[in-house]
Structure formats: structure tokens, C-alpha cells
């Protein structure tokens, strides 16, 4: 898929909770196909001290409106400034970048595990994977109820489960403490996960033990996003691979994680 640098129009910036925003961008042209797990690299010109672009995974795509949305969680200076952009602003974006998740077969049952901004690709998978509601199980973790975003728009695509560290929503603890995770992990055909590395490593370890296919989406820091700076490398069984072009989605059997 051909990658482009485009000035896109920000048509909506909706605050979802205290540190999560949904930004909707619109292209003048027809959108290229964009798959769950792919990302965009966004220029944040409003702050001169932010030199490099910032990568964000894609939350949703509306080809008819030539729009896609990003889930922007405030993590540092770049994401913070990006959330101050307003409808009508132009934003330079390089996209679509990276490889998406391996989509499930029609008869498979999948578990999507998201944490932090890693929720975005999980929601997008749930919408476009083409499975029935009872085949798609989405497990989302956060510190507290206030940290979860409203996923009601996606609840017709799968069964949703929540964990919070303080027990304020769903089951108390991490995603790996959830009852469905503990009792049914081996019943899934595919597990997909995106979120903080400790969470993904814990999931990967259990997926290996259960013998279940598992793909993770990595967030290594990068400069370019299209495979020339070689800064975002991850060690794999076949040497260093760029997260931006060889990933960001990797099958855990190809990684060298000590799990």
C-alpha cells in the first residue's frame, strides 16, 4: 500500500475522559485501505519544541466520509499539544503505516486485550473482523473507571469485559486477573493485544502456555515511521526488525521476549 504525506482536516476533537481524546481527520481524496493495527505519524506543528512526528494507531475508519479517527491519550508533550487542536485545523499526517493484525477466519473465536491507548486497534478489529458478536471478546484494562473510555458504539460487535486496578469498573485487578481470561484463555483461536509492554508480556506468556496464537502491537519510539531511521527496532528470532515497517504487529513466536 502506497504511503503518503497529506495535510488532513481535523473535523472533530472530542474529549472522551480526563486524558483521552478522539480526533477525526478527513482527507480530500479517497482513503487508501487501512487495516486494524496500522498507524499514522502526525506532525505537531503547534509546538516548536516538538521536532519529530508522533505515531498513533487508528481507532476507526469511515471510507464514505473519507475520515478516520485516532484515540489520543496524553502521555507526553506531543500528545498533549495534539489534543489542543480544534476542528478546522490542518494536520500533516504520513499514512497508512505498518502492518495490521492477521484477521481471524470466519469460524474462529478471538480475544482482544487492550490497555491505555492500545484500546484503539482492539476496537477497530472488533468492528471489521467480520465475526459474530459471540465470537469476539474484548477485554479492556485501566487503573480506574475514569480511565476507561466509552465503548458503547462498539458493543454490538463483541462481548466487552473490563478490569480496573481499584475495582471501580468490572473486575478488580489487571486484565490477566479477569475471570474470562483465567478460565477460558485456551478456548480462543486467536488473541490480539495492544497496550503497555508489561501487560502484553504477561498475556504473551499465558498465550504461549495455553498454546494459543497471539499477536502483539509494539510502540517502540521511532523517528520516521517508514523504515529509514532504524531507531524503533525490536529483537526478533531473525535479528533486529523495525517496529514501523516489519510491525508494529508481531506474532509472539517471532519475538525474543524472556517470558
Amino acid at each position, binding site marked *: 500500500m*502506497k*504511503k*503518503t*504525506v497529506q495535510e488532513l482536516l481535523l473535523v472533530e476533537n472530542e474529549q472522551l475522559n480526563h486524558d483521552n481524546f478522539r480526533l477525526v481527520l478527513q482527507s480530500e481524496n479517497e482513503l487508501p485501505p487501512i487495516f486494524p493495527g496500522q498507524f499514522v505519524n502526525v*506532525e505537531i506543528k503547534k509546538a*516548536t*519544541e*516538538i*521536532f*519529530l*512526528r508522533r505515531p498513533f494507531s487508528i481507532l476507526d475508519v469511515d471510507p464514505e466520509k473519507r475520515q478516520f479517527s485516532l484515540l489520543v491519550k496524553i502521555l507526553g508533550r506531543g500528545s498533549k499539544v495534539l489534543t489542543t487542536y480544534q476542528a478546522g485545523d490542518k494536520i*500533516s499526517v*504520513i499514512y497508512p503505516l505498518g502492518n495490521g493484525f492477521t484477521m481471524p477466519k470466519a469460524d474462529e473465536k478471538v480475544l482482544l486485550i487492550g490497555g491505555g491507548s492500545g484500546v484503539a486497534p482492539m476496537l477497530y478489529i472488533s468492528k471489521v473482523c467480520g465475526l459474530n458478536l459471540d465470537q469476539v471478546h474484548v477485554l479492556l484494562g485501566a487503573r480506574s473507571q475514569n480511565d476507561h473510555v466509552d465503548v458503547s458504539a462498539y458493543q454490538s460487535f463483541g462481548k466487552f469485559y473490563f478490569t480496573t486496578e481499584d475495582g471501580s469498573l468490572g473486575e478488580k485487578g489487571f486484565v490477566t486477573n479477569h475471570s474470562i481470561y483465567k478460565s477460558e484463555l485456551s478456548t480462543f483461536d486467536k488473541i490480539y493485544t495492544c497496550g503497555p509492554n508489561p501487560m502484553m508480556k504477561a498475556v504473551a506468556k499465558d498465550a504461549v502456555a495455553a498454546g494459543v496464537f497471539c499477536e502483539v502491537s509494539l510502540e*517502540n*519510539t*521511532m*523517528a*520516521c515511521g*517508514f*523504515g*529509514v*531511521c*532504524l*531507531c*524503533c*527496532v*525490536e*529483537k526478533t528470532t531473525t*535479528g*533486529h526488525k523495525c517496529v514501523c*515497517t516489519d510491525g508494529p504487529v508481531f506474532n509472539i513466536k517471532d519475538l525474543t521476549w524472556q517470558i
Partner: protein
Amino acid sequence: MADLSVKIKDLHFKNPVLTASGTCGFGQEIADFVDLSKLGGVVMKGTTLKHREGNDYPRMAETPSGMLNAVGLQNKGVDNFIKNIYPTIKDVDSNFIVNVNGSTIEDYIALAEQINELDKIPAIELNISCPNVKEGGMAFGVSCASAEAVVKAVRAVYTKPMIVKLSPNVTDIAEIAKAVEGEGADSVSLVNTFLGMAINPETRRPVLSTITGGLSGPAIKPIALRMVWQVAQAVKVPVVGMGGIMNAADAIEFMLAGATAIEVGTAIFIDPTIPLQIVDGINDYLERHNFSSVRDIIGSLQM
């Protein structure tokens, strides 16, 4: 349209804008964004005799108006280059220049000999200035004696134009430039990155796995420009200028200071279409100032 062509020795460049090594892969990585045949040249990712895995992650830190990198010459080696990459570039109408690296003089010689055999590689950029490798690299470029030794050895086996890429991490870059010119360099390119570092105060640890790395981007531009100006006055061979060039005005500054051609590096990470924007911008500048040729502005700094 002004005449944008320049020459290094007998090698013709359709315009003075090249992409810098380590910022454009081997060309194909940016071909979605850029018609490579519209570039003056593509200086490809640093190549070594053998495969190199490069340094551990993390390799990058954003810094004020720039970035540090510590990639460490990750590449698949010259055999892979000849077998898998050379066929993808040999029919593209631009100057694809191999950036040649080694840990020892023997490595440089063996690599240069192999590249010399490739018809569609019109020149090499001899890198004696990589700050991110433990052996060789910058160590060759920080003293006149060691720089002379590498250049002399490669000159003996490499018959086409040889551009020597200099390190700014020296007391007097003009002395190094004169030394390599004396051993047969056809051109010098400068500057490679400045050795720098970044620390995460929260973890009290270095940001980079290698502790130190190479600083690039607009943060280094004024220093790079000063060095290009000094070197251009010290040597007779053409100078290729680089260091934080983000737009045509930056490129023109380097040419006024004496650069015959320029390389665009870190800017590509922000926007890979910048090199071609610079080509257009240089043309606009020449027309606006009634210069018929870009060669008229080289070293034309008014004092």
C-alpha cells in the same frame, strides 16, 4: 528553469540535492513519497563488508530542534547489497552513492573493491565519521594520520569519485579536510553527527542504550554551516554540505558558504518530500535573484 546541475570531479548531478546516508534507506524506502530520479543523488544507508545487527534499542532520543541516534550501522552487508538492492536501483536515473564503512582499513579496502565493480554506482561516500560504532568509524576521522591512512588505502583500489565524510567531533575540521584531499579525496562531505547524550531524570539512566549518540537536525545547523565555510576555504575539491537542512533557504546558506551540493538527512524523517521541495525552492531562489546557474551561488558569500 535555472541550470541546477553541479559536478563533483567528472560526475554530473542534475541538481545539488542529495539525500543523506542513514535517512533514506537504499532509496526504495522513500519511493512512495519521492520520484528518486528527480534527486541529484541518493547516498544510501551505511554499508559494511559483513552483516551488522547494530546497537540495542533504545536508539533514539528527541532533543531540542533535533534528535540523537545510535543505530550503529545496522545493515545486511555488501553481499546482500549487491544481490538484493543493487538490482532495484540500477535502472533509476539518479546517482546512487554507497556509504562505505569499516572497522579496519582492510575492511574499507575490500568493500571499496567490490563497489568499484558496480557500473551503476558512480561514487562512494567514505564514512570515517560514524560516532556509534565501537571499532573503526569515527576513530578514523578524528586524526589527520588515521584519516590519511584510510583514504590513501581506498584511493589505491577505488577508481571513481570518492567523497570522504568528515566528523565534526574534532578540533580543526579544515585540517582533516586538507589531509584527506592530499591523499586523493575527490570531495569532502560534512558534517556527520555531533556526539551527544540524553538522560532521563526520572529513571536517572541514559536514554540511549549506548549512552552517547549522534546529534542531528536544525540544532546543529549553525555549527555545520561554519564548518562547511571553513573547509570550503581550506580545500580545492568540492564540498558537500549537510547538517540540519530543513528547507531551500538552509540549503542555499550552505551553498553560499561554499558547498557544491548538499545532503538532506533528518528532515526526511519529518517529511520525506522535503528534498524535492528543496530542489524547487533552490530554482525559485535562482530565478528571483537572476542567477542562470546554481553554480553561480557556490561560495558567493558577500563579505
